[in-house]
């Protein structure tokens, strides 16, 4: 018999459920209870592209040490879906545990003797307690949370306190929910060996952090950042961003006198229309954004080229999912980077922001609105399903009330009176950015024609090659300006550079501290850099320059950030080694550790002369 895993505040629990059965809220409650006990944890919903009836999973990494990337192997499986028993049993690590509904016997053929099976007759317990079929279904999930509370030692008051908050105003629902928790707890206490060798314990690991998903965080950023027009088309995994914006704006953005809205949310007929609305609003002086995912970004290409060439502020969030085509719409990836960076036909380049945490989703949303107006161009925030839809422990949001929105170079009526020779695309400041005017500003001055066709500095249509080329070169100058304005990379290296480094971004960041620590134990010590924007600032290329070899960790097949670095920084591709993960599940430290260690092992292969006698 394998020795059961012993672990306090350091394990992975996975819930296997059927989607549409109400499991998501029970599982979320479980994760939040640990968070409220001060224990760092990372919940991840692994769901199908379906509304009801298919298998769905919810994984929670619990780590007092604060390792919140995904970790391979499951310590405790809550197997509530008979259809996936075989897979779920197989995933449990030797010495692990599997909790199941023992109302029906667990199939003998699937049993393993190196894991502990814990049976709770959930359906039977429910049947005796609740009459309403809907309650019977929903409370199954609450019963196993109750059992887990006893098995893992989750604080009872934390759980019941959450139920009270959740059902505030619907108090009669609190009683039955608490009762369901009690049924599970009591059964575990009376019939099972508790606590388990793996369990939780209150600690001080989360400080003043919040537990929030990236989509909501970005929506709040847009709200604080002054976005007034949001246009979007429903697409997983971005939908909840626009919905969160509307929900919070409805409360926080009303005129105190008239109660009318200081925002407009438009659910467009498709993504083309959504980005068109954003561009129309940006052209007319409103801060505006859209949220989408890969297929939507594909549809927006033509408009993005227009906004680049006609120089119109626009903000877009791409909550990336696994492509190509419809791909795996409910799985995560970082595979739209190249599409976004060079969106649309002709010579185009776009500014990208690469957040890693909900706090950065908030900050970059604000930043993107400023940058879009400063640079008069589309700004794309590249998040992904993992960051956008899962709750993450994040530093709390902050706002400086002295902060002013950067509305960029806009001439008002007085400004137009003072300027002698105004041309919309004249580069008077040497940063590649002209002064724009908004419709309706001045009766005589400042009107111009915005177009996707070539034009001169005074916005007059032209087909003269040298003027076209001059304009394209000015756009390059603006691009160089952008490189100085995007968020700087976060670099970690000692006083003296190590020979090798590693680059990562977005949701590839959370597993990195764990991976780097493990590699260090193997004697592989790396400097690291988290890239936060594109175009890359000088610090990015200088970091690469300082190292003989740099690994680039990302969640796609083709090494897209690596390509961007090679193309834009004219880096020798041999110096950038791709570390890739693209099965649609969030990246784990183990994958990074394995690939980097293998690279060094391969480099140390004995020479032919060493092995031949």
């Amino acid at each position, binding site marked *: 018999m394998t020795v059961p895993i012993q672990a306090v505040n350091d394990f992975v629990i996975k819930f296997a459920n059927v989607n549409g059965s109400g499991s998501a809220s029970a599982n979320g409650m479980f994760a939040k209870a640990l968070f409220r006990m001060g224990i760092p944890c990372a919940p991840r919903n692994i769901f199908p592209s379906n509304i009801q009836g298919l298998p769905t999973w919810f994984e929670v990494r619990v780590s007092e040490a604060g390792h919140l990337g995904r970790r391979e192997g499951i310590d405790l499986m809550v197997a509530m879906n008979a259809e996936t028993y075989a897979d779920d049993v197989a995933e449990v690590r030797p010495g692990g545990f599997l909790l199941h509904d023992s109302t029906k016997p667990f199939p003998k053929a699937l049993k393993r003797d190196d894991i502990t099976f814990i049976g709770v007759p959930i359906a039977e317990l429910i049947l005796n307690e609740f009459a309403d079929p809907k309650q019977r279904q929903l409370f199954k999930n609450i019963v196993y949370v109750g059992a887990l509370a006893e098995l893992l030692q989750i604080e009872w008051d934390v759980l019941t306190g959450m139920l009270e908050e959740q059902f505030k105003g619907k108090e009669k629902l609190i009683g039955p929910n608490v009762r369901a928790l009690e049924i599970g707890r009591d059964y575990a206490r009376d019939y099972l060996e508790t606590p388990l060798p793996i369990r939780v314990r209150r600690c001080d690991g989360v400080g003043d952090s919040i537990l929030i998903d990236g989509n909501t965080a970005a929506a709040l950023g847009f709200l604080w950042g002054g976005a*007034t027009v949001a246009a979007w088309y429903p697409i997983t995994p971005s939908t909840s961003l626009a919905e969160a914006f509307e929900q919070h704006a409805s409360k926080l953005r009303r005129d105190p006198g008239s109660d*009318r809205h200081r925002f*407009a*949310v438009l659910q467009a007929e498709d993504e083309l229309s959504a*980005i068109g609305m954003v561009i*129309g*609003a940006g052209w*007319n002086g409103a801060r505006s954004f859209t949220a989408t995912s890969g297929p939507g970004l594909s549809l927006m290409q033509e408009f993005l080229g227009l906004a680049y060439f006609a120089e119109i502020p626009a903000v877009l969030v791409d909550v990336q999912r696994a492509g190509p085509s419809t791909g795996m719409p409910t799985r995560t990836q970082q595979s739209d980077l190249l599409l976004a960076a060079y969106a649309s036909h002709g010579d185009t380049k776009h500014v990208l922001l690469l957040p890693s945490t909900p706090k950065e989703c908030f900050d970059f949303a604000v930043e993107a609105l400023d940058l879009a107006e400063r640079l008069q161009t589309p700004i794309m925030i590249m998040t992904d399903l993992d960051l956008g839809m899962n709750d993450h422990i994040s530093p709390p949001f902050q706002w400086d009330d002295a902060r002013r929105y950067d509305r960029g170079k806009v001439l008002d009526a007085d400004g137009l009176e003072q300027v002698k020779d105004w041309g919309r695309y004249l580069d008077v400041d040497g940063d590649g950015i002209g002064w724009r005017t908004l419709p*309706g500003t001045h009766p005589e001055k400042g*009107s111009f024609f915005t177009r996707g066709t070539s034009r001169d500095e005074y916005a007059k249509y032209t087909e003269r090659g040298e003027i076209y080329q001059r304009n394209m070169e000015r756009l390059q100058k603006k691009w160089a300006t952008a490189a100085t304005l995007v968020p700087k990379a976060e670099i970690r290296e000692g006083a003296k550079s190590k020979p090798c480094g590693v680059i990562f971004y977005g949701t590839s960041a959370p597993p990195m501290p764990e991976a780097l620590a493990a590699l260090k134990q193997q004697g592989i010590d790396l400097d690291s850099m988290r890239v936060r924007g594109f175009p890359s600032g000088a610090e990015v290329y200088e970091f690469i320059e300082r190292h003989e070899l740099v690994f680039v960790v990302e969640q796609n097949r083709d090494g897209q950030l690596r390509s961007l670095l090679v193309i834009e920084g004219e880096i020798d591709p041999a110096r950038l080694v791709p570390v890739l993960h693209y099965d649609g599940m969030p990246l784990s430290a183990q994958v990074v550790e394995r690939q980097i260690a293998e690279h060094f092992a391969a480099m140390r292969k004995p020479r032919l002369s060493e092995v031949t006698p």
Partner: protein
Amino acid sequence: MTFVAKPKAHHPKLPRNELGLTRRDYEGAVSTLCAGCGHDSVSAAIIQACHELSVPAHRVAKLSGIGCSSKTPTYFLGKSHGFNSVHGRMPSVATGANMANRELYYIGISGDGDSASIGLGQFAHIVRRRINMTYVVDNNGTYGLTKGQFSATNDKGSTSKKGVPNLYEPIDLAMMAIQIGATFVARSFSGDKEQLVPLLKAALKHEGFAFLDVISPCVAFNNHDGSTKSYEYVRGHSSAMALADLIPTRDAIEVDYAPGAAEDVAMPDGSTLRLRKLREDYDPRSRVTAMDTLMRMNEKGEIVTGLLFLDDNPSDCHEILATVDEPLASLGEAELCPGSERLETINAAFR
């Protein structure tokens, strides 16, 4: 097109409107469309309508898609901001612009290819959303800029310049607009200034989505087999003019006819268009009557012109969304940012 620059000086006796402006103050750049193009007549009608209404030109935003029609905003209201967007997508750009600033006049210019084919989806949805604007389709049933392919409003059975008949049913944008909720729907003919100018004025004053389908003949792509002025004929019969892009010069077609009357208009392609003006006692306040009239006239092969439908009490998208009276684009931090204290309560809600 003409290469003669317009003189900037105004005739001192040109009539001035309430703003002290003459018609010339509402003009734009010189048109580069073919001489006699119906679209230029529409531009002229817009200039006249805006002048007569004393609309401050800088308070107008002109938006268009791509195509001959969509080039025309350059040719009127030179003091207005214009936006020549992408093909078939003017409606979404106009929607966003209108959401940003509800205080401006919005004139959208589109064509039949732009609105009935590539942009049919956006057309339908801007109608539904009731954006407060004047939406004009310069409808010539053909793709002018790409030289004469059928558009989706072309009548079944009519022939192209290559003699190929159109095999497909036409889309009637006015009928669609009535059905999906436009609060002002009219049809006119580019050469009928007496009808078009008042309709444009009414549309501009309408506080909702006003749609004007303007039949506007294409002089370039005629295909009358016997015509000595046809594209093919000129190419084949004149060595000195054997240029593939030579377009015969024509005068714009003009009509002037009474309410209730029918007018047969000879089109550049040799066909005849029968326009039927709505009777003076026609009541445009019923969608059912409007649809019925359109369908019955269609059956007779007549194109009915005039104000087809009007909702006297229209609502627009800002009403639907309950937005504030001031332009959203004019709001600053004080109105938009909930501030640090409020953010603390948000943080607390996620702990």
